[in-house]
């Protein structure tokens, strides 16, 4: 069995795979079992070695591409690694981030029981070498006007009605403070132009394989009140939602008169008419600039 996806705490026994929330535990276990943290090692023994970078590419496909995409250009889950990295871009920092994971993010430790089948130090250095080789080839970032993007975000484009940046804004949509650093440009463009294609991920429970998505929901309560909003979380029996007034609503499903979920984003589609290509670039520049801080 393959390891489960890196999200699942399990992967595989198959694939199964892995849990971020148990990240802390894993790191703890890693420390317990490894004795000395190995990231003390600063120097990449393979720096610039093209053959090693190729081996690193194999490892990357196996262990990293699930979130970061083939070619490391970012999937729907992990950041584009061909750009500057928010958590450090030096060999030693990248090694450390892979080896031990990144606390407070979905990035798990690559130690035993962490990502997939786990990587040895040697394999991690191969991946570091591969990532560095991509960086060199990566084209310059297409940069829009971040200052104008910020104006749009808080003004004409109306983003801040539902989204927070650095503690300011609405709560109905996901907080976007770090989205620029943790998602690819392609993902950001798609989220604006076609927000329902891939719904944003919400709460990620420690042992749960898949995160909750930002699903739209409408309910009618026992007294006939109609409410709509987004799902914060749910299970077979209960629903936790935020209504369009940003009020938290907690329900037992069996007591609702009706419950309808739609796999459609509550966010409007920002097509060319609503948001020109240039404004789109500016907005993304703002998200990426803010996210990198």
């Amino acid at each position: 069995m393959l390891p489960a996806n890196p999200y699942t705490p399990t992967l595989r026994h198959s694939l199964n795979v892995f849990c971020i929330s148990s990240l802390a535990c894993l790191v703890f276990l890693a420390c317990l079992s490894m004795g000395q943290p190995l990231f003390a090692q600063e120097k990449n023994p393979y720096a610039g070695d093209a053959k090693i970078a190729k081996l690193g590419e194999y490892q990357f496909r196996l262990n990293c591409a699930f979130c970061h995409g083939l070619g490391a250009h970012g999937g729907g889950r992990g950041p584009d690694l061909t750009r500057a990295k928010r958590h450090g871009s030096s060999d030693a920092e990248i090694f450390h981030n892979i080896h031990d994971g990144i606390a407070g993010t979905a990035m798990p430790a690559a130690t035993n029981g962490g990502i997939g089948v786990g990587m040895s130090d040697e394999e991690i250095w191969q991946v570091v070498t591969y990532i560095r080789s991509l960086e060199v080839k990566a084209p310059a970032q297409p940069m829009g006007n971040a200052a104008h993007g910020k104006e749009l975000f808080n003004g004409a484009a109306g983003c801040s009605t539902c989204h927070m940046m650095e503690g300011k804004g609405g709560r109905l949509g996901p907080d976007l403070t770090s989205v620029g650093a943790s998602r690819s440009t392609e993902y950001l463009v798609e989220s604006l132009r076609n927000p329902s294609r891939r719904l944003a991920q919400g709460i990620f429970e420690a042992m749960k394989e898949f995160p909750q998505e930002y699903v739209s929901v409408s309910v009618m309560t026992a007294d006939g009140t109609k409410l709509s909003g987004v799902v914060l979380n749910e299970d077979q029996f209960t629903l936790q939602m935020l209504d369009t007034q940003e009020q938290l609503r907690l329900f037992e499903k069996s007591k609702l008169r009706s419950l309808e979920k739609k796999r459609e984003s509550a966010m409007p589609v920002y097509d060319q008419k609503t948001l020109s290509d240039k404004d789109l670039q500016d907005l993304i520049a703002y998200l990426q600039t803010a996210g990198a801080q």
Partner: protein
Amino acid sequence: MKRQLSDKELKSEFLNRLSSQAGEKHGLGMTISGRVAAVSLAGMFCIGLASIASAQVTPQRLVDSAKEPQNWLMYSGDYAGRRYSTLDQINASNAFSLVPKWAYQTMAGGKFEATSLVVDGVLYSTGADDRAFALDARSGRPIWQYQRALPPDIRPCCGRVNRGLAILGDKVFLGTLDAHVIALDTKTGNVVWDVEAAAHTTGYSITLAPLVIKSLVMVGVSGGEYGIRGFIDAYDAATGTRKWRFYTIPGPGEPGHETWEGDSWKIGGAPAWITGTFDPATDTTFWTTGNPAPSNRGEGRAGDNLYSNSLLALDPETGKLKWHFQFTKHDEHDYDATQVPVLVDEGDRHLIMQANRNGFFYVIDRASGKLLSATPYGRVTWSNSKDASGVPIERKEASPTLAGVPVCPGALGATNWFSPTYDPQTKLFYVSAREQCDIFSTAPQPYEAGHAFYGSAYFPNDDAQPFWGAVRAIDPATSQIKWELKHISPSWSGVLSTAGGLVFTGDAEGNFMALDAATGKILWHFQCGASVYASPMTYAIDGKQYVAIAAGSTLFAFGLP
């Protein structure tokens, strides 16, 4: 290494003596050394711990496990692998009133996949990271605890997990992540013997609960992600001496060797990482195997790749192969057959049923290994045809490519290792099914001993609807699905059925629930606080039935108020 505090030793000693007394009182044959008749103990006896009796588990008791439904003597509850109990105190009319009776926290991170054993009031189980423990099954209070000192360079594919113990006599048996098999004293948790099955540095590990047959302890290995050569071993329960080994990949000169290209057999995987079953009537033990390695790449291992993804009928005395049936030939989608092979008798028909990871429900003749039927129980796109004997075969277009090919079931399968159950009352086979399709990609990968070796990766299909799961009740007579209970997301919980007309299972959202076995209606649920990655079991003490499940790092026991 065993962590033991002096007060634990005292407790353990106390319980030993107590159980000795109880055994004597109940006229159970026991070996008692240091019998104690202290007045103080007699006093304690009276305040209610007395029912802990501890006659030793014999091979015959394992065969006759149905005669003592208050105990759960092996991983699947019985040799047939049915995970069914005749206990019916908790039933469809009172399940709504179930309450938690106790919880035991292992404090181990990672998935908690074990099924506990219960023998005469004592519960034996394991947690993540190869810890083992014995509890008072009525209170959840620990009697002893054991923690394996694992080396730092183990390579467990999919979590530092363990699925439980086997028991015989005064020992419980544990397979470890560093590929050892060890025996622990049931009274103290002390290591009695410890043997290395294989070098963990080459990718071997053991995660399954062993199976005891007669005087032998049987285990299979994990490691199909590291290019191991799989095997099933049998050890003398008394000494740990290895009695036989069956390599799941035939060596040169053996039948089946020709199904591997070149030297690919040496690193061909075919691990056996889930507990087998046993038919005492024909003296045959049944084991299942996992993927050929590398799992997502068929290039370089042309052929059927026997006995990967197979059901093996072995002679437990010798390990000799009686017959085999291969579910997925030349697998490229990680369709391990490591689901418990369930033995079911329908009149004169002696059958084996398996809901396979590849999405088909198989019914097989137990004497010959001949396939009787193979029917999808979930979404299947990897196969759209069968060979002359009815065995589903791969669709060429489903073969993984560099860019990736969407295939159902996904890499985690239509089900996985968690147990199904067969209920002889409803005559239904219940399984936790997963509806997840993945994009399978492949790329060449060099083999290096002890390193990951699975020929690239899989990705979820972003365009797909969210993945979901369901408990499905399959009527084996027709292979049709009689009912299903949908889960919000795919579950990693097994299923238990009982004579109370109930099916118990858990979900990824952390609920443990009781279902009406006839309809799938939810009768009761409890939120455990973390996803369930285990299969439920049931037992009784003092005439009171309990149902136990692991979730998070906690073992829960439920009962009537």
